[in-house]
Structure formats: C-alpha cells, structure tokens
C-alpha cells in the first residue's frame, strides 16, 4: 500500500552498495554545500545576535540532513527544497504580515524602546557649554573613519562610530596631538581637504565617549579640533522618563502608543514598536485621512475587477463564437494576430498606453488619430481615467478569454447541438440553452481566477495612472483609480516617505481575506467537476 513502508523483497539499494555512484557523489557534494551554507548563515546570525535566523537555519540544515541521509522519507526528499522556500518566503511572510498588522511598526516606531532611547539621546546632542576642546587626529580603519585624542591623563584615546573611545597602548604622540595609532591609518589635513566624501563622513562622525549613549560623544566641526557633545535629554530608566534639561519638560514612556509623551500631549519624534491590537483595522475605517478614500477605493476595486472580467469575457467569447467557423480561411493566422496583446508583456503594454493616451494631441496618438486632435484628459480626469483603465485592460485581457473560449468551444460535444437543431431550436436558442451553459462549466473557474487576479492587478493601475488623479479631500497619497493593492503600496512607505507598515499590513489582510474567499468559491466549483485530491 505505502511505497514508503513496504520492505523491498530483495536487499535494499543502499545495502547493495558497490562503490561511489555518480548520483551518490553528486548528493554528497550538494549536501556538503547545503550544510556549509546553513552553518555559515547560523554563524553570521550568532555574530549579529539574530537568534530567530540562527535557530531556523540550524533547524533547516538538521531536517535536510535527516531527510536526505535516511533511506526512508522518499517523499520528503522530493518535497523538501520547495517546501523550505514556501515556508520561509510565503507562509512565514503571511504570518508576519498578521503580526505587523497588530503593531504600530512604521516611521518613528521602528525598533525597541532601548533603541528609541539611544536614538533620541543622540539626536538631541549639543556641544557642552564651556566644555573643553581637544586637538583631533582623524583616523581611517576598515570600519570607516575614527577619531584619536589625548586624554586628560595623557593617554591616547581612539574610537570610531561603532567603537567608543578607548585607551590605545603603543600610540605615538607629538605634543598634544596624536601622530600614529596601531591598527589605524592617520589622515593628515591635506588629504582630508582633498577628499570631499571623507570630509562629509568626518563631519557626520560621532564617536561615543562610552557604550552608554547618556555619556555623550566627540564630534568635530572642522576636522582639527574635537568637542564633547552631550544630549539635552536625560533618560531615567527607573521611572521611565525623558527630561529635556533645557526646558525641564518631562516626557513619560507611554507603552500603549510607544511614545514619550509630555503632560501637554506633545511627544518626542522617535517612538518604539508596541502591539496595538486591532487599532490598525479600525483606523482604516475611521481615520479621516483614510476612511473616505478606503471606501471609494474598495468600491472601485470590486467594480474594476468585475467589469474587466465581464467585458473581456464577452468580447473574447463573441470573437471566439464568430471565428470558430470552419468555413473561414486563415483562422490560424487570425488567431495568432488576435492574441498579440496577450503575448506582449503587460507592464510594457500599460506603459505604452500611458504614452498613447497622453492628453496633448501632439504627443498622444489616441487623441490625435481617433478624436480629431481634441485635448481629452484620459489619465487626469477621474471618470475618464477609470474608463481608460478598463479599456486598456480589455485590450490586454480579451485575447486570453478568446483563447479559452475557443478551446472550450472546440471540445464541446457536437451531438447535443445536432439534437437541438433537429428538435427545431433556433440559433439563438441553441446558444442560450446549450452552448453557453456548457461553456460556462469549463470557464467559470477561470473567470473567478481572473477576478482574483485583477483584484490585485497592481501593474496596470500603477503603470497607467499611478492611482491618479489624486483625491482632493485627503492628505494621503491616494487617487481615484487606486485599487486596494496600490493603496497598500502607497501608504506602506517602502518607497520612502512616511511609512506605516502596521496599517498597510492590516489592509493586506483584508485583501487576503477577500481573495481567499473568492478562491475558495472557485475551488469548490472546480471540485464539483473534477476530483482534485
């Protein structure tokens, strides 16, 4: 019954081993490589203290070894490689999307509270009033530029952005200036003046006085003298407050929102990541910036997907019916020419139409050739932009349904139609009562799949209109032709700008649910006709 467990009547292949076969050698080399890569990743993860990556890479290597060196687990040997990618880059990312959706992850809430505290202390550093300045030597090492100064008791202190200042034995000093430090190259002033990139790095360089960000840092304004900077904020870990030492304002850590908040409601610019429960989901519906656009965009997403599928299917079906006629000559050539739009890469089509629909008739051929040189704002008027998108997508998609319907028509049994004809059914009746229902059986799953695809058809929207024209009643970068996926992209901030990963992930989950439901319906329908499992 089970291939895995039945004992072979003769000795198993592995025991009848007669030396290194090519297959075994190849397997050994591959497994050695897999182990090497896995251990390298684990080692690097240890180095940068990414424990999750460490555990997962070790676990994957261990499972791979077990699967491929045991004589059983045949199925595992074939499924494992694909499964690893599926688990890491699809299943995990889906689960992670759910997690991010329940946090305030985004601009200003990127990391842990400790890192937020450090960032705030560093951002608010000012030169210490009346503080001493030190003659400075610029160093360069593999990690980038660094500073060296002579400390108060005469020892040489050196450090970089990552390594706080520390005494270096064996350094050479000339007067009050350091001239050589072991492990570093000293940069002299002419070299510094000649290298503008290095100057920029040096002016931005902050060498911490110690591991504790509270202690301040050394910085320079011109490259020859260093000044001690200290933060104008003071962090008190025990009572979890930040105090602005110049104004005396006390900011308390608020663990609900992940911010430092003063009594008057003002907050410090850097916060940290906290769980916010379902706030992101309610934000999509209630936040004045998002809720208005959200409903309009959702409505347009559904109508766009539905109208595209309906119009392309009808056109494709009509052409398939008309040209599925053996009396027409050259059908093969016609078919090839009809499907050209489908064979042309979709992103190029969308960009090409963007150029052709240019409102200025001097540039846009559609206006100049078909609309008598009128200036029609195809891509900047809300209604026309929607029409343009539907039209372009019709052009892109009808060949697909033409192909599908032609295939389905040719596989229809002819005897039923013949019987109908003999019974006196007219052509229209034949089509309505026989051809169409039969055709829909095989094409409905594809119609639903196409709906799900167009529901997330990022390329056509983003390339053709970029979601524009913009809504005027919101400050969010959203427009009349945005669909949910482009809305998610715009507010996620992965392109730069203000990022709100939490809200964007929450919207992704809403789309996940819609697409999942649509696919589930499609699956149930398919299963009625063919046994899948």
């Amino acid at each position, binding site marked *: *019954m*089970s*291939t895995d467990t039945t004992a072979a009547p003769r000795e198993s*292949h592995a025991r009848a081993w007669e030396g290194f076969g090519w297959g075994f050698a190849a397997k050994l080399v591959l497994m050695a490589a897999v182990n090497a890569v896995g251990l*390298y*990743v684990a080692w690097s993860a240890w180095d*940068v203290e990414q424990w*999750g*990556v460490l555990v997962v890479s070790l676990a994957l290597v261990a499972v791979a070894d077990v699967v491929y060196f045991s004589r059983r687990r*045949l199925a595992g040997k*074939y499924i494992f*490689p*694909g*499964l690893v990618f*599926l688990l*890491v*880059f*699809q299943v995990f990312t*889906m689960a992670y*999307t759910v997690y991010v959706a329940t946090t305030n992850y985004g601009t200003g809430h990127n990391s842990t509270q400790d890192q937020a505290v450090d960032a705030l202390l560093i951002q608010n550093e000012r030169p210490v009033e009346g503080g001493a300045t030190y003659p400075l030597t610029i160093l360069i090492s593999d990690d980038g530029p660094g500073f060296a100064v002579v400390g108060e008791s005469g020892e040489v202190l050196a450090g970089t952005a990552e390594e706080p200042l520390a005494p270096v034995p064996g350094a050479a000093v000339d007067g009050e200036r350091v001239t050589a430090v072991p492990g570093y190259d000293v940069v002299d002033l002419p070299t510094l003046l000649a290298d503008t990139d290095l100057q920029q790095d040096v002016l931005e360089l902050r060498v911490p006085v110690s591991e504790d960000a509270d202690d301040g840092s050394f910085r320079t304004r011109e490259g020859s003298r260093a000044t001690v900077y200290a933060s104008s904020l003071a962090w008190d870990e025990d009572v979890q407050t930040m105090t602005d030492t110049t104004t005396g304002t006390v900011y308390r850590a608020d663990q609900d929102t992940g911010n430092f908040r003063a009594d008057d409601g003002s907050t410090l610019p850097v916060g940290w990541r906290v769980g916010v429960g379902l706030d992101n989901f309610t934000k999509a519906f209630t936040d004045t910036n998002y809720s208005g656009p959200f409903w309009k965009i959702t409505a347009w997403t559904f109508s766009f997907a539905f109208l595209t599928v309906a119009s392309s299917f009808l056109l494709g079906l009509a052409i398939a019916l008309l*040209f599925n*006629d053996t009396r027409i000559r050259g059908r093969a050539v*016609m078919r*090839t020419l*009809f499907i*050209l*739009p489908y*064979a*042309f*890469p979709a*992103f190029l089509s969308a960009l*090409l139409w963007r*150029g*052709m629909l*240019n409102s200025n008739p001097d*540039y846009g051929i559609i206006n*100049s*050739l078909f609309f008598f040189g009128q200036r029609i704002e195809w891509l900047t008027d809300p209604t026309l932009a929607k029409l343009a998108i539907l039209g372009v997508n019709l*052009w892109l998609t009808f*060949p*697909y*349904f033409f*192909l599908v319907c032609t*295939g389905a028509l040719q596989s229809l049994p002819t005897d039923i139609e013949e019987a109908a004809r003999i019974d006196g059914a007219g052509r229209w009746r034949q089509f309505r009562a026989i051809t169409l229902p039969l055709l829909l059986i095989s094409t409905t*799953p*594809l119609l639903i799949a*196409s709906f*799900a*695809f167009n529901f*997330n058809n990022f*390329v056509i929207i983003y*390339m053709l209109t*970029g979601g524009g024209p913009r809504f005027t009643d919101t400050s969010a970068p959203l427009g009349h032709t945005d669909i949910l996926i482009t809305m998610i992209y715009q507010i996620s901030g*992965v392109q730069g700008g203000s990022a709100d990963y939490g809200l964007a992930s929450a919207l992704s989950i809403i789309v996940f649910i819609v*697409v*999942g439901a649509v696919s*589930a319906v499609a*699956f149930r329908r398919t299963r009625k006709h063919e046994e*899948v*499992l």
Partner: protein
Amino acid sequence: MSGSDATRTSARRRRWWAEVGWKYPLAALVIFYAAFPLAYVLSASLAPSGTLTGSTSLFREISGQNFTALGDTRFWQWAANSMVIGVSVVVGAVLMGAAAAYAFSRFRFTGRRLSLTSLLIVQMFPQMLAFIAIFLLLITLGSVVPALGLNSKIALVCVYLGGALGSNTFLMYGFFNTIPRELDEAAKIDGATHAQTYWTIILRLVTPILAVVALLTFVATFGDFILARVILTSEQNWTLAVGMYAWVSDQLNANWGLFAAGAVIASLPILALFLFLQKYIVGGLTAGSVKG
C-alpha cells in the same frame, strides 16, 4: 437558363456574404484593434525623434538611432538582470515543482492529503500581498547575510521561488497523474531507483507541462514590478520592469523613443515564446490560469 444560373450564383454569393464573408472585414477590424498599438510602438522605435509623436503616418522615417542610444543607458544591464533572474526562477521553480508533484502523485505518505490541502489554501493568497513582511524579513536577513538582504538579486530569486510550489504544483500534479503508474513499476522491477525513475522516465514524459510552467513562470517573473521594485534598490540591479517604468514615469523627462526601442527588444523573446508554444499554452491555461 443562364439567367437562373446567375441568380443562383448571386444568391449563393449573398448567402456566403451573410454567413461567412462579413467576418473577414470584422477580422481585419479586430486585428487592427489588437495590433495597432504594437505597430505603433515599432514605428516609434524606428522614428528619429525622442517622443511618441501623434503623427498619423506610421513608419514615415526609419532610423536605428533609438536602438543605438540604448547602449548609452543601463538598458542592457537591466535586460541581463531580468534574464538572469527569470532563468534562475524558471529552473528552480520547474525542478522544485516537478519534484513535489512527483512525490504527491506517486508516493502515499502520512500527511499527504493534509499537505495537498494546505498547499491549496496557501496558493490562494498571492505572495505579492505580503510585500511589506518580505521587505522587513529581508532587512533582517540582510543584516545576517548581505547576499540575502535588500538589493540582492539572489534574495529576489529566493522570494520568487517561495511562490513556486504553490502556483505550479497543482498544474503539474494533474499532469503527472495522467502518466500510467505501470511505467514506474516496470522500471522498479528492472532495478531502477526512485531517483532514476524520476529523472530518466517521468521527467521525459511530462515535458509539455514543464514547458508550460516554465513559460508562465518566466512571463510572471519578467513582468513582476512590485517585489522587484521593493527589493532591488540600486539602479544597476533593476529589472526591465522597474527600469523602464522609471524612464517614462516622469512626465517631463519621459524618453519615449528609448522606451519604444527598449519595449520592442524586451517583448521579442516573450512574443516568440508565446507564438511558438501556442498550443501548449491553451492546454495549460485551461488547466489552471495564471495570467489574465
């Protein structure tokens, strides 16, 4: 006599026109609709000016200027990136998908039904929707191994391969099931191992479905924008989809001449593949839709 002959001929001709003949002008209309933009882009690529001018006469001037100008841009680098990424994903996806389909089709192991059902559920959710999580995951991975982080083509290939099992296994699984099991059994009796059976017998027999999966995977990878844009940050790593979007997205600096020439070159391999593999594609499309 001859008069009635003439009426019969003209009646037949009239019927021919009513039933068949009118479809030829209609076909011409459909072909014009389908092919006009493509003819237009070809004409624009050959025009010496750098704009998509609304000139009504196509192919008035022919010049290779735009094609030569591509050499001064990063176009060929992007094309190479697209090819490398596309081919890597195709090879990986076909190998992994076929292996998984073979296992599901031929072995009866515990958890088989459950795995198939889970796979079916997972593949309902488009991977690109998780682009934020992918972005954040790659930031973390990149801090461990830069080659797996943002701005790495290897990382992008890995991400695409993550979606390979879900979208291809079912398409292939159905096809694998149509290959008679007797063939495997005969090979097994002859002393072939499971690996020999797989590589030398099964894979040869399922070539048509491998071709369809390869084509659909390549087209999907070639045309993907969102993941490529999010992951590949520096210009020399861009794919054609990202790079050519950048060329024309800026209304003021859009260089349509370059774009047209690039579009002609970029679409040729895909067009050729589609037209040559037409009959396979129709079968593959009805078995499970990917594009459209």
